[in-house]
């Protein structure tokens, strides 16, 4: 169980402090596939990076009751749209690196995924296309041997067929104990894939609902997000009215 308690984070810039996270409380259990949604600047990346101790924060984050430290950090893995691999190395070198530093690398899964996505093992990653780089980034996060796989907009730049394939493969290979926490803008696309949606708004959890609850209520995830974030559907219409006042309408 991953527990996040009263998580706060302030960034300081020249004009003072910007509070990216204002108090996030969240619990994620094993086996869940959780989607993290929110506008840009809502605090999604900050939340993920804090869990991984890639930046400082106030509050508490516990993994099975213990603080996240060197002992248990290998139970968390990370895939980010910024890419965290070594551009000059080959996938094979990465396999060796991960094997050396993370005890339980998943070799078979690595080979299966590399072959399924037809990624070359012995070419330097800087020569890969963006889509391939994204795929490799996610593959490493999946093969590290972690229980909690955190992903920050991992599919930015992949075409839709690519992404659909990936969701299906993921569902096929994930074991019951593996948990995914994925931040993305692609609300409609991941709706069926996830089991739970968490909405972040202005540094706080604005919504938290499971897919089954949404189905019971007969709402789509997009409806839920719009309602919770106070999205005004007539916003565009009214703005256009103001913009085109006095002009001839077609």
């Amino acid at each position, binding site marked *: 169980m991953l527990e996040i308690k009263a998580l706060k984070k302030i960034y300081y810039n020249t004009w003072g402090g910007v509070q990216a996270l204002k108090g996030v409380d969240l619990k994620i259990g094993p086996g869940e596939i959780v989607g993290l949604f929110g506008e840009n600047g809502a605090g999604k990346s900050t939340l993920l990076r804090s869990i991984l101790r890639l930046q400082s924060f106030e509050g508490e984050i516990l993994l099975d009751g213990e603080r996240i430290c060197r002992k248990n950090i290998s139970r968390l893995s990370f895939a980010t749209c910024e890419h965290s691999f070594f551009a*000059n190395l080959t996938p094979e070198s990465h396999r060796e690196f991960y094997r050396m530093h993370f005890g339980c690398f998943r070799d078979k899964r690595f080979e299966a995924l590399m072959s399924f996505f037809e990624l070359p093992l012995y070419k330097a990653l800087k020569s890969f296309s963006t889509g391939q780089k994204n795929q490799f980034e996610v593959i490493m996060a999946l093969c590290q041997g972690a229980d909690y796989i955190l992903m920050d907009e991992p599919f930015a730049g992949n075409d839709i067929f690519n992404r659909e394939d990936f969701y299906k493969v993921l569902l096929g290979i994930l074991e019951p104990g593996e948990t995914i926490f994925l931040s993305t803008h692609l609300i409609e696309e991941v709706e069926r894939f996830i089991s739970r949606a968490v909405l972040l708004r202005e540094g706080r959890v604005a919504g938290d609902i499971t897919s089954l609850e949404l189905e019971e209520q007969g709402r789509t995830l997009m409806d839920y997000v719009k309602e919770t974030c106070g999205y005004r559907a007539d916003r565009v219409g009214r703005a256009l009215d103001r913009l085109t006042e006095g002009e001839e309408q077609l």
Partner: protein
Amino acid sequence: MLKKRFSFEKYFPPGYEYSKERNTAGFLLGFGAVMSLHFFKNLLHAADRLYDHVQWRRVLRAGAVAPPFRQLVEDQWMLYIPLFLFLASMMLYHYFYYFHTTKSIYLMRRLPKRSVLFKSCVQGPLLYMGASAALLGVLYLSYYGAYRLVIPAECLP
């Protein structure tokens, strides 16, 4: 059976191209060493001052004492400041390598072994510093040898 050549790779950040750094360090060391040859000018000058020049012969002056070896190489340590400054700055440069192109810093900071990140930044330059110090040690040892050869035993301080 081909023996694998000694590789510096593991002392540097993964994927880091260290050849430029190695070459620059080599150049700075070489530059310093070449400039240090100035020692021989000092040595011959000091030796010369031990003698009187009578017609076409030189005669050792009574009681002439040569300056100590240390004095002849006194300021040469400054020749190697660029080298060591360069290597020290490279340690910092290695850290910024993890932010360049991709954010591999995210991977390094997630490793269970805390020391890997730090070591990858400093080990390479430290190795070069050590090798340079060793080579310079050999160089100045040979300079000392020259000093003892040139200066007559009775004029040693």
